């Protein structure tokens, strides 16, 4: 069921919120052991909340997400519910407050069913950096779901919840959405509050929804968006009715395609994107070539900027105020245990390898003597990337390209080579560096034999700052003419 269907059924009384919630919890119990999509399932809390909604139907009669079960990425704080960021560092951390997005969802009638697995501190592209084991792709259990919101994408794809929240620092909503065959939206930087999101790279992080349809993403964005006094970077721009923008009309809409950037991508991905553009052309959109001369530098620029910010943000994990602290008498750790040793051992034992790698790189690029050559240079390049997009958006309404250069790779295929892993982000990082909104919509499947391993492909659309309405309108128009969003992965038992 889509969010809209659940919501309408609960509002009309056709189904109770408790029934819906019970169904979802049963599915999670059946399928999650194969997928590892959830770090924590809060069955009792969810059922209690659903029953509360059922008891007070009048109050929730107009709530936009009445009774809608939602899976929340485990780097978003939930008061009283363990929030781990998939790290040993926060394995037992129970936040004393809710992220603003969590409070807004619950205020709109949503029912949180659990916290989804992700790459540790949202660093990765495959979900293999979770301290609690990788999530598996519902379409092929030996493949990655993408990262870092891999649990959220897998949960929606396997219909363990109609809605999930993710966070996106360099593609972490869009890339797993593409690899799992669902819709994922990264809003404009500032559109959605980051209060209560465990910080990775503060100038890039943004929270957004993963859902099975574009309409559901539009509906959810309307709930999440808006200024928040707790986040000084949240924007005061008015929040339009995003669902009202979904008219299906793309006549005259100009779609830019950065052809030069797409050379060398997977042939099936390339074919799927071309076919998707034909669908939009048939609806009256104009597809034009655009030039983004600095986009090819986006990935290295991203890894210089994001690791610098991460090294600073993650300095807070020091074993003092919350989270893990290494014991004084750990194995082979005899010797002086002063404050400095406590910090260093806590961080050594609490963080996994990718997090350490990024803290190290970020510390280096910020250090005296290298700051100008790397961090400052990357920030200047960021300006040029941003200007490329500003120039493009003077001529086009949206920019289209694949979300990921390849379909889901096998688990373990790229873990030993960080650079190969980072290259998976080539099409997604620009939206974060430039702050632009971007969405991934399912646009086909690989057709390599055998058919049992068909893998989803996603098309990414990027839009003007704070113009999610146009982005969603084009994505929805495309979805109306295609059936990709309705296909279910093979592990879901047929009814």
């Amino acid at each position, binding site marked *: 069921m889509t969010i809209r269907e659940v919501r309408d059924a609960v509002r009309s009384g056709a189904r109770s919120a408790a029934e819906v919630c019970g169904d979802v919890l049963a599915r999670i119990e059946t399928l999650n052991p194969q997928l590892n999509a959830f770090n924590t399932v809060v069955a009792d809390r969810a059922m209690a909340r659903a029953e509360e909604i059922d008891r007070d139907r009048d109050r929730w009669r107009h709530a936009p997400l009445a009774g809608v079960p939602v899976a929340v990425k485990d780097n978003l704080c939930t008061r009283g519910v363990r929030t781990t960021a998939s790290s040993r560092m926060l394995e037992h*951390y*129970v*936040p*004393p407050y809710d992220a603003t997005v969590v409070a807004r969802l619950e205020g709109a009638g949503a029912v949180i069913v659990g916290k989804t697995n992700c790459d540790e501190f949202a660093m990765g592209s495959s979900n293999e950096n979770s301290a609690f084991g990788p999530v598996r792709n519902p379409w092929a259990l030996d493949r990655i779901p993408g990262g870092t919101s891999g649990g959220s994408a897998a949960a929606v794809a396997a219909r363990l919840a109609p809605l999930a929240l993710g966070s996106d620092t360099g593609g972490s909503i869009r890339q797993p959405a593409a690899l799992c065959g669902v819709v994922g939206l990264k809003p404009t*930087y*500032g559109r959605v509050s980051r209060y209560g999101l465990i910080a990775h790279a503060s*100038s890039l992080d943004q929270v957004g929804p993963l859902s099975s349809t574009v309409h559901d993403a539009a509906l959810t964005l309307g709930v999440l968006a808006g*200024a928040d006094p707790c986040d*000084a*970077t*949240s*924007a*005061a721009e008015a929040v339009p009715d995003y669902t009202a923008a979904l008219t299906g009309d793309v006549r005259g809409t100009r779609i830019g395609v950065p052809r030069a950037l797409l050379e060398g991508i997977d042939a099936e991905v390339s074919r799927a994107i071309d076919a998707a553009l034909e669908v939009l052309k048939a609806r009256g959109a104009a597809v034009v070539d655009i030039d983004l001369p*600095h986009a090819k*530098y986006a990935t*290295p620029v991203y*890894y*210089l900027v994001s690791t610098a910010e991460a*090294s600073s943000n993650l*300095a807070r994990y020091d074993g*003092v*105020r*919350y*989270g893990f602290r290494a014991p004084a008498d750990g194995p082979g750790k005899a010797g002086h*245990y*002063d*404050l*400095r*040793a*406590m*910090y260093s*051992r806590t*961080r*050594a034992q609490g963080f996994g*390898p990718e997090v*350490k*790698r990024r*803290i*190290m*790189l970020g*510390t*280096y690029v910020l*250090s005296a003597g290298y700051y100008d*050559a*790397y961090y400052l*240079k*990357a*920030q*200047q*390049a*960021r*300006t*040029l990337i*941003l200007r490329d997009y500003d120039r493009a958006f003077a001529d086009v309404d949206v920019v289209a390209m694949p979300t990921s250069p390849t379909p889901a790779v096998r688990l373990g295929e790229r873990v030993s*080579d*960080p*650079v190969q892993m*980072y290259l998976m982000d080539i099409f997604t990082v620009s939206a974060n*560096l430039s702050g632009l909104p971007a969405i991934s919509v399912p646009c086909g499947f690989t057709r390599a034999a055998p058919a049992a391993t068909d893998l989803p492909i996603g098309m990414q659309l990027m839009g003007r*700052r704070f113009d999610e309405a146009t982005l969603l309108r084009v994505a929805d128009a495309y979805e109306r003419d295609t059936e990709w969003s309705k296909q279910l992965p093979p592990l879901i038992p047929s009814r």
Partner: protein
Amino acid sequence: MLASGMPAGFTRDQIANIAALANLELDASETDLFTRQLGDILAYAEVVQQIDTTGVPPTASVVARHAADRPDEILPSLDRDEALAGAPDAALDAGFFRVPRVIG
């Protein structure tokens, strides 16, 4: 390093220094691994040196305009017990976080 256009790579000592700056205790195998991998990543990132950034201002944030000033009002915040509840070692009665001895 920059004159040649390619980084010389890292030595184990450099990696140990960075780890010390970052308050990370590395074992020997991690030091070896990061010596190689950080060198690889930086070699890959070296391509940014080709970009002509003469006169280009840096972008640290894409926030177009900052929120207006707000009145400095005292609002409720976490109480002390809640703030201490997640600490690995808290002196709850005294209301302190406890850490290993710093002086003496």
